[in-house]
């Protein structure tokens, strides 16, 4: 909106009109494959994303930064889960740390106590972690919005104290001697491939019929019940998917650091995915990925500032929420698909 007073003292207003680009409309149906231009329009952004992610480890200057790329991948899984739950099921989850911790401990226990290799512990910790988290969150599923957030925030804090107080699973020392990945490049690329599959898989899922049910639960849960669908069941499926992604990240983390401990329940894992979703653009699923690839390396750069890191971080977040609350990806998608012009009202 842009208003100004004219010479008559009345207000003349202009507003921005947004119109879909012709190419966007042409590429919506099967006719998209009729010419290279349309195909490029569809494929290019996706290709840039995939190739960009896969090239990233090769461009890193040092082993330290290669490790940062892996950590980013873990945060991406959490952020994807958060965005999926928040924008497609209406459940605001602060459970990132919970999912990471459960997956991390599970993988570490399976590896050190039962001698299973990472090729088995990671899938088992993913499924097992998802099941444990979903079962524990089951009583909280009727809750919505901030109340669900409070319960999910409580779990990692409680589990951390329980492990500390009972001195189980290695207590405050954690579980040491977890096996690492056999090859460095496996460790590096597996997580990136998982991230790519997760992004495109989730994007596909939310546009399938079951994805519409998820959106229905967010939009109008009473209507979903009147449609003969149990909202608890679909919320549980959603939480299972999100906590599975988180547990996968946790298991990966344990094997990268060859260690699992109570710092895996740290609230960073709950908060940074939310920040990444805000910056990247909620509801797009790609946005949180971009947000993680910006925020996590940024926080590594800011390590030089010590504890001031958080202040700078907070300022960036505030600026984003105030001036670009829609997020990078929503903005970019709009620019890509639509053109704007000013019209007089």
């Amino acid at each position, binding site marked *: 909106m842009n208003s100004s007073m004219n010479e008559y003292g009345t207000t003349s207003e202009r507003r921005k009109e947004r119109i879909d680009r012709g190419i966007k409309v042409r590429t919506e149906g099967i006719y998209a494959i009729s010419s290279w231009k349309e195909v490029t329009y569809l494929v290019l952004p996706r290709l840039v994303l995939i190739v960009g992610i896969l090239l990233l480890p090769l461009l890193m200057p040092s082993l330290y930064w290669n490790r940062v790329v892996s950590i980013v991948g873990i945060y991406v899984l959490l952020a994807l889960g958060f965005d999926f739950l928040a924008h497609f099921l209406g459940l605001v989850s602060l459970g990132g740390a919970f999912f990471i911790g459960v997956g991390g401990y599970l993988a570490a226990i399976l590896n050190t106590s039962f001698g299973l290799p990472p090729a088995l512990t990671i899938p088992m910790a993913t499924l097992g972690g998802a099941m444990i988290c979903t079962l524990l969150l089951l009583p909280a599923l009727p809750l919505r919005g901030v109340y669900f957030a409070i319960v999910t925030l409580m779990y990692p804090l409680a589990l951390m104290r329980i492990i500390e107080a009972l001195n189980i699973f290695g207590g405050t020392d954690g579980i040491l001697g977890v096996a690492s990945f056999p090859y460095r490049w496996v460790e590096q690329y597996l997580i990136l491939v998982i991230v790519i599959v997760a992004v495109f898989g989730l994007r596909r899922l939310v546009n399938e019929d*079951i994805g519409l049910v998820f*959106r*229905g639960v967010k939009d109008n849960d009473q*209507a979903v019940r*009147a449609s*003969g*669908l*149990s909202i608890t069941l679909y919320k549980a499926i959603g939480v299972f998917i999100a906590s599975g992604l988180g547990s996968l990240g946790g298991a990966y983390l344990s094997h990268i650091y060859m260690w699992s401990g109570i710092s895996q329940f740290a609230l960073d894992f709950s908060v940074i995915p939310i920040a990444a979703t805000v910056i990247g653009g909620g509801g797009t699923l790609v946005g949180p990925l971009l947000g993680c690839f910006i925020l996590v390396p940024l926080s590594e750069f800011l390590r030089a500032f010590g504890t001031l890191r958080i202040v700078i971080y907070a300022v960036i977040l505030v600026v984003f929420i105030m001036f670009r609350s829609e997020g990078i990806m929503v903005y970019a998608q709009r620019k890509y698909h639509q053109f704007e012009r000013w019209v007089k009202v």
Partner: protein
Amino acid sequence: MSEEDILQVIDVCKAFGGVQALLHVSLSVRRGEVFGIIGPNGSGKTTLINCITGFIKMNSGKVLYKGKDITNRPPDQIANLGVTRTFQIMRPYYSLPAYKNLVIPLFSPRARRTGGWRGGGKLGDRGTVSIDILEEIGFERDSFVPYKLASSLPTGYLKRLELARCLALRPDVILCDEVFSGLSMSEIASMVPLIEKLQMDGITLIMIEHRLRELFRVASRVMVLNFGQKLTEGVPEEVMRDERVKEAYLGSEQVSDYI
């Protein structure tokens, strides 16, 4: 109960704190009929529907559907048995296009039994089936209307969308909570044949309505509620001649105007 009773409500009581919303309400609806529920504002009509469909747990009483006890079952289970409802305040999925609104009920276990995993069986996927249902209920197939976001649809279409959501479940009973309210006279005029068509398809209808003239055109029996209690029940003409009904529901107005 007789063979043809499809839905029986026996002695339902519901209190919200100190407010007695329903007090020993009983009714039985025959298969294939249109049954009207009327009464002044706050007389418990919507509460009764909420109790039957499981959205509110009743304090005491029983609901039998085809002789089976469905008292206080979760609403999704009741809907899957074929007892569906519309909401007085429309509850579409505003962020979805109209036809995608119907994909959600088509995904329910009841619809999947007939439609298979893809949705429509031989008829195509769920999107195609939704367009068919929407056309049946009055959305022009070749227009943009079925593809518009529900948030941009006018009240008339949203009321139809409520009915369409019920139809997607291939229901035996539809409980309509004021489908005529908020509509213009011409919209109501086009809705009445729809209701008649549903009845001809063998669907039992229970209608809460304030538009008595239109209700009496389709309903074979009506029940009058007042302060949570059943005043009387019978064919519309008889019921409206009842002195208590005139007093409670219509005040001093000329009742004969409505028949």
